[in-house]
């Protein structure tokens, strides 16, 4: 669960499947840690391509 750096490409990151339950904790009415990670990466300029988050330079 969550995000994992790719050994051969330390700037790209592989993510878990994004489903409602991995992104939103309905029992607590709040975002999950995983969703916050994704938001932070997107704010840093990463772009999602499939299950990968690619750094701004790609």
């Amino acid at each position, binding site marked *: *669960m*969550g995000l994992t750096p790719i050994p051969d490409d330390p700037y790209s990151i592989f993510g878990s499947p994004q489903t409602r339950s991995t992104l939103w*904790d*309905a*029992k*607590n009415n*709040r*975002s*999950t*840690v995983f969703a916050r990670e994704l938001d932070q990466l997107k704010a840093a300029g990463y772009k999602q391509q499939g299950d990968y988050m690619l750094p701004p330079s790609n």
Partner: protein
Amino acid sequence: MLGSSTDGYGTWPIPDPLDQRIRSLIKSWGNLSEQDREREAAIITEEQAAMLRAYSERMASLAVRNEDRRLLILGLLALGIDGGSVDWREDILLLCLHLDAARKLGAVPEDVFCEAGRILPPKVTNVFMEFLNRSPEDQSLEAMGYEEASDEGEFRYRRTW
């Protein structure tokens, strides 16, 4: 106990009748043999794990209100039952509440965490111990995204994000 009717349970006023039902389930689980506890833990779903997290957070607040150490044990058991099989990072955030609450009650946090850890998988107990060995800054409510607040005039931990 599951389904959309319990969405938002973590934010409901404390106590709620559902707390008692979950408490009974945890106690029943605790009375199983080690083998049966492992078998039950292996089939916990993501939704059930989220319910247990919500319960755990509620019990930390209730423990402070009632000055009841046993509620901290129940809260820690709720966190560890799934053996960290879902996303353990979600659980780690809540450990700061039980640590803070234990200190507020004048209990020795290590004793509280160890008591819960006795019937939890070693993997979970290790996470508990690693958390207790963190620097105070990395154990703080602030670092984990919590603050002390009140709900209907009573103490409650509240997530800041």
